[in-house]
């Protein structure tokens, strides 16, 4: 005789291992979920421990306020990070000058002017820009943008801050456009329609109603893009050169924090040398910069969000 359904349920419920599974699975999944926390702890610990080792050899203040970055000199190596920070900021500045107007304008066009069909075509194409690997952008900067700039301004050297800056800007356009568009689209339709019914043109609606209402989201998108630009590595490694310098020159070879880490990793800086530890100190500085930006972005978007 086949067992009845009740019997089957009773039998399966009495199985101990099933109950064990139900209890063990959440614990296992919790352990998996904590991998991300462990990763963060790992990053912070790694950076701090190796940076402390670095500071036993190079004084902290010399690192922070030193104006010369000369790590490869055998006689008097100097580790003042300011030139690397200035290099990073030069590239970031140009990237922002390129990306902010174009990104925000694209966002306004997509959310305020474009019809549903046009938006459905344009948005995925913009996202393709975000999916292009940075090494490809680096190649583009080195072999196309730099020669083009040299045609217009012969004073520009092969390695400079402008070309990688422009290309980093192109890279972060989709980020600004897409995040700003999200912010603009979340402004309720009724507000927009109210303004239109009062006789506003679309531009007046965008400029006086939706952009101010979405300002926190737009600013947050820009701050996140700055963070991305600061951490961008391959474009600057290929096209910006490897000359740490503190001056305000954009046309010659510079070096960013990320490019320095790559330069050392590519060569054979032996484990345990001061140069080896210096990449952690630079990495830590970079980490602090991007974290401050990320926290600022989430603060801006939370603190100044308009609630409807």
């Amino acid at each position, binding site marked *: 005789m086949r067992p009845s359904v009740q019997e089957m349920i009773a039998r399966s419920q009495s199985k101990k291992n*099933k109950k064990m*599974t139900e209890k063990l699975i*959440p614990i*296992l*999944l*919790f352990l*998996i*979920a*904590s991998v*991300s*926390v462990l*990763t*963060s702890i*790992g*990053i912070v610990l*790694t*950076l701090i421990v190796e940076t402390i080792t670095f500071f036993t050899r190079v004084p902290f203040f010399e690192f922070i306020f030193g104006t010369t970055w000369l790590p490869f000199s055998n006689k008097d190596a100097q580790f003042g990070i300011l030139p690397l920070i200035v290099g990073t900021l030069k590239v970031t500045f140009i990237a922002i000058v390129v990306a902010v107007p*174009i*990104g925000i*304008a*694209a966002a306004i*066009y997509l959310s305020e002017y474009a019809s549903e069909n046009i938006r459905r075509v*344009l948005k995925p*194409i*913009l996202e393709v820009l975000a*999916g*292009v*690997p940075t*090494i*490809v952008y680096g*190649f*583009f900067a*080195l*072999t*196309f943008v730099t020669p083009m700039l040299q045609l217009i301004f012969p004073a520009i050297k092969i390695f400079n801050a402008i070309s990688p800056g422009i290309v980093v800007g192109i890279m972060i356009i*989709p980020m600004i*456009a897409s995040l700003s568009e999200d912010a603009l689209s979340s402004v309720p339709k009724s507000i927009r329609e109210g303004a239109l019914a009062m006789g506003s*043109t*679309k*531009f*007046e609606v*965008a400029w006086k109603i939706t952009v101010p209402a979405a300002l926190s989201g737009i600013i947050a998108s820009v701050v996140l893009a700055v*963070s991305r630009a600061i*951490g961008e*590595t*391959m474009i600057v*490694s*290929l096209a910006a050169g490897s000359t740490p310098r503190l001056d305000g020159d954009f046309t010659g070879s510079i070096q960013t924090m*990320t490019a320095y*880490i790559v330069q050392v*990793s*590519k060569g054979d800086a032996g484990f345990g040398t001061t140069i080896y530890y210096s*990449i*952690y100190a630079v*990495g830590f500085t*970079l*980490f602090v910069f*991007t*974290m401050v*930006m990320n926290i600022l972005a989430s603060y801006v978007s939370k603190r100044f969000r308009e609630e409807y």
Partner: protein
Amino acid sequence: MRYIEQQTVVKRMNSRLIINKIFQSIFLLATLLALLALVILLYRIVSQGVGHLSLEFLMNFASRFPEKAGIKAALIGSLWLMMVVAPTSIILGVGSAIYLEEYAKQNRITSFIRMNISNLAGVPSVVFGLLGLTIFVRAMALGNSVLAAGFTMSLLILPVIVVAAQEAIRSVPGEMRDASYGMGATKWQTIIKIILPAALPGILTGSILALSRAIGETAPLIVIGVPVIIQFLPAGVMDTFTALPMQIYDWSSRPQQEFQTVAAAGIMVLMAVLLIMNSIAVIIRNKFDKRY
């Protein structure tokens, strides 16, 4: 007395409409400018690289002679890398997402994990390289093997997969869950037999997009110390290897002009791999979209 001065309105109307038109064109122009950049980029790479692209290029190892340089080791190496990254990152990512969506209580630990994941997404990839160098390459003594690079890449794309899987799980309608419980299924049975299959398309799409990011990522590999010139294929996950972006980086940074065409051809191979992965993701998304 009139509330509206019609004269003024009429006078200003034209200029307001013109300003609207001008700005509409400016905004459209900006959007097209971004697209133009993409077109130029693709055109440049194809026109430079297509001459060097051949079956030989795919079958040859790297060489110091540009005409003999091939991408075999890098292509196979990238596939090996994906064989480590895909299972590691998907198991970790989907597991975390299930925990956060189904089991986690609303407490401080949970919100800490959530905040942590979103912060992790903002860490530059080169910093992940430093983590991999210290933990996997040195502390766990994996060297510059496929495994060390794979683990590093998995952690790098983990936040992307977690967020995608969370969204996919969240979009499974509550009625399906209730029906499963109503039939007497346990929580884990409901998750594994109802929720995960329903969320699978979303999870797969997100995971493929995340993996395509990992395949193009260069900086962590350089920091880990992945070599470039390799004349053999890895036989296992503990072997050293090279990857597509590493190879492209090496060719791009060489001073000889000829290597630029080799680099462009390499980029075409990389972009083709990305295109295939993204098409699969789009097909999955379109096929299974809006089932509920």
